[in-house]
């Protein structure tokens, strides 16, 4: 069918020009600046000035060490805890229910979660208030429990966001292997369930979760918004230092920042190489262990308890946001505010514009991404082909490359095109990161659609477009809206793309919340962070309710009405 080829060409063109070219151009511009070529600032030709400036930055080695320790440590812990917790829960908790319980923790943007955690952990936070009567504190204790120089608060923040993500990925991968019967087979051979997990199920799950783990690792090594709110401040992790230099009043600092952005990309590459190495080592050790026939293993129970603790912290963090946003007078060590007020919520003049901009960016970037994802999947259907490895890699590329490595360069391109600082440029910048998640979320349900439905439609004379619009899209309404809700959540959470492509002039809930988090009134920050957390929740609620309403007289499509 020639139609399929035309559509595929169109999709490739859009993905190429909208996603691949900007990333490559952004990387190239960043690299050019790193090697001293920055005509806009009068640096012409090639030099190593940028690298010398980077090497001269005080605290660089500390930043590098923090980045590696926090990123690798948080990811390793997340993987172990997530897998352990799924091992403990799978078979006892139905997968659908478990995944539904995790969804809210995934929906909350990183910055909002980080702010909530800071409200819990800070010396004047909820935990210290709870301990105050026992410890006899009348003033907040003099502890650096947030922004600590070791990055422990940041590691905790990353765990709270990455463990639910990896649990969800692992749990859904579990449905793709014959887990229940293999567990029975292993136990009948005398293996404890934990040992069957490690020796039988995990090696089969790993190929299915390897890419998401790589995404989590790349994220933890290059995180900015959470690191500004929870991480060490002086010196900070590398990505935060780079952001500061890029936006320094002295434009010459762009040079060391650009060089550092390449180092950042190198760090992520190193992290991925370490992941591959660890995988090989584990495979070799695992084989030895299998051959030795040891029947015992332990850990899932402990992991489940720790994950329970993490999720409790996360829930308390969200509650802290709500309580702070409604507080009026709340002195230490009171556990609850002494007086309450809606004043900061009613001052919509402050947050209204940011909310409006956030919604507009989210809807536009999500609509673009969903449309492109549908066309991509439809083109695959018409070509009757499976996805090539390079195409899969292309989808994951924006999630694995550190944002800061190409966003600066991308903004240089946007500046040249006269787009920088325009909401359109931000929509485009966000869509680069929204599209992959929408695509990943929509692929499995799209492929699970019963092919006989479209065949039946074709047999009735419906052409390819009619089959798409009249059969596939309505039947797939629920997963499409779920993918859109994920897109909204991703868009709302974006910090760096908004900052760079908005040239600091496009203010969203996220950029405002991060900016305000360090200095300003906690009650104001709480309003921004609560709104930031609420937008994805509303999107998920609509994604659940709309199909139920549209298909209210279609039992097979309406799905369970959410509780």
């Amino acid at each position, binding site marked *: 069918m020639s139609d399929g080829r035309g559509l595929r060409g169109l999709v490739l063109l859009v993905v190429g020009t909208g996603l691949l070219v900007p990333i490559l151009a952004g990387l190239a511009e960043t690299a050019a600046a790193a090697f001293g070529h920055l005509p806009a600032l009068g640096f012409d030709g090639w030099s190593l000035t940028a690298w010398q400036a980077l090497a001269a930055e005080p605290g660089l080695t500390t930043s590098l060490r923090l980045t590696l320790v926090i990123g690798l440590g948080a990811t390793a812990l997340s993987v172990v805890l997530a897998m352990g917790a799924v091992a403990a829960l799978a078979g006892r908790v139905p997968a659908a229910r478990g995944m539904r319980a995790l969804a809210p923790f995934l929906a909350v943007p990183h910055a909002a979660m980080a702010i909530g955690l800071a409200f819990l952990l800070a010396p004047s936070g909820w935990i210290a208030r709870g301990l105050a009567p026992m410890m006899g504190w009348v003033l907040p204790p003099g502890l650096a429990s947030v922004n600590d120089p070791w990055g422990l608060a940041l590691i905790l923040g990353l765990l709270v966001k990455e463990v639910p993500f990896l649990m969800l990925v692992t749990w859904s991968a579990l449905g793709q292997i*014959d887990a229940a*019967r293999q567990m029975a*087979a*292993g*136990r*009948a051979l005398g293996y404890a369930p934990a040992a069957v997990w490690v*020796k039988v199920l995990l090696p*089969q799950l790993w190929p299915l979760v390897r890419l998401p783990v790589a995404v989590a690792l790349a994220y933890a090594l290059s995180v900015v918004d959470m690191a500004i709110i929870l991480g060490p401040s002086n010196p900070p992790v590398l990505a935060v230092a780079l952001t500061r230099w890029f936006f320094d009043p002295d434009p010459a600092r762009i040079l060391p920042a650009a060089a550092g952005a390449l180092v950042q990309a190198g760090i992520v590459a190193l992290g991925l190489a370490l992941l591959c190495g660890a995988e090989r080592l584990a495979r070799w050790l695992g084989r030895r262990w299998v051959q*030795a026939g*040891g029947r015992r293993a332990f850990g899932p129970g402990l992991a489940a308890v720790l994950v329970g603790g993490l999720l409790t912290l996360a829930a308390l963090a969200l509650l802290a946001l709500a309580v702070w946003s409604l507080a009026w007078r709340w002195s230490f060590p009171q556990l609850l505010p002494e007086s309450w007020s809606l004043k900061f919520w009613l001052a919509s003049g402050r947050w209204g514009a940011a909310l409006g901009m956030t919604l507009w960016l989210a809807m536009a970037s999500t609509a673009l991404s969903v449309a492109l994802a549908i066309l991509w999947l439809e083109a695959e259907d018409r070509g009757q082909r499976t996805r090539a490895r390079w195409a899969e890699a292309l989808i994951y590329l924006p999630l694995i490359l550190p944002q800061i490595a190409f966003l600066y360069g991308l903004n240089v391109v946007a500046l040249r095109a006269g787009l920088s600082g325009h909401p359109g440029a931000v929509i485009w910048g966000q869509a680069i990161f929204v599209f992959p998640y929408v695509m990943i979320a929509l692929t499995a349900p799209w492929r699970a659609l019963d092919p006989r439905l479209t065949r039946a439609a074709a047999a009735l004379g419906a052409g390819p477009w009619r089959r798409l619009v009249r059969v596939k899209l309505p039947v797939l309404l629920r997963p499409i809206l779920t993918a859109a809700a994920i897109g909204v959540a991703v868009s709302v959470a974006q910090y760096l793309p908004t900052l760079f492509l908005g040239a600091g002039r496009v203010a969203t809930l996220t950029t405002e919340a991060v900016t305000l988090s360090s200095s300003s009134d906690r009650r104001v920050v709480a309003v921004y962070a609560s709104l930031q957390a609420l937008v994805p929740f509303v999107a998920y609620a609509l994604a659940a309710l709309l199909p139920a309403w549209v298909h209210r007289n279609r039992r097979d499509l309406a799905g369970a009405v959410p509780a």
Partner: protein
Amino acid sequence: MSLVLEKLMVTLPRADRPLFEVSLRVEPGQVASVMGPSGVGKSTLLDAVGGHLAPGFRCAGRVWLAGRDVTALPAEARRIGLMFQEALLFPHLSVGDNLAFGLSPAVRGRAARRAAVATALERAGLAGMEGRDPATLSGGQRARAALMRTLLADPAALLLDEPFSRLDTGLRAEMRAFTFAHIAERGIPVLMVTHDPEDATAAAGPVLRLSAKGA
């Protein structure tokens, strides 16, 4: 060394009456057949004996193995082997490693373990196939490898869940003879669920017929 089921009852989640009540004694070296229509609970009976009941299933009565009450033990502590319709070799392990996985930890030392696996493969007509990917084996080879994996764990009893139903007619007789010969040699009690009357005849042991109203 006999396997004794004493008033064993299983009730499904949200059901008020048990699916069946079974009392049965299987002597060492004997193969008892469980027959009955689909959905009557034959596989559930095996799950109850082996300790593989899903959460929510309620089980009453006793399972005795070699004079020991194993009812409250987890599956891995019962020493009751289990064979499915499919061989269920672990796809990520080589054939040899699949057998090594089964081999009892009482066999110590790399050389001794490797030798035990090689001997078992030889007896299954799979000599030298340690490094093979299980997916490349024929159906009969896979079934024999799976039986060897189960026997290497040194089980005190064996459960067979329609073990020959997926095999071609010709292969079925061969595999049946192979399996029963190895069981007889071990002298362990076996409980076999089957639809095929020929299986029960070949087993030549007691036959338990489960019917919809209970046994």
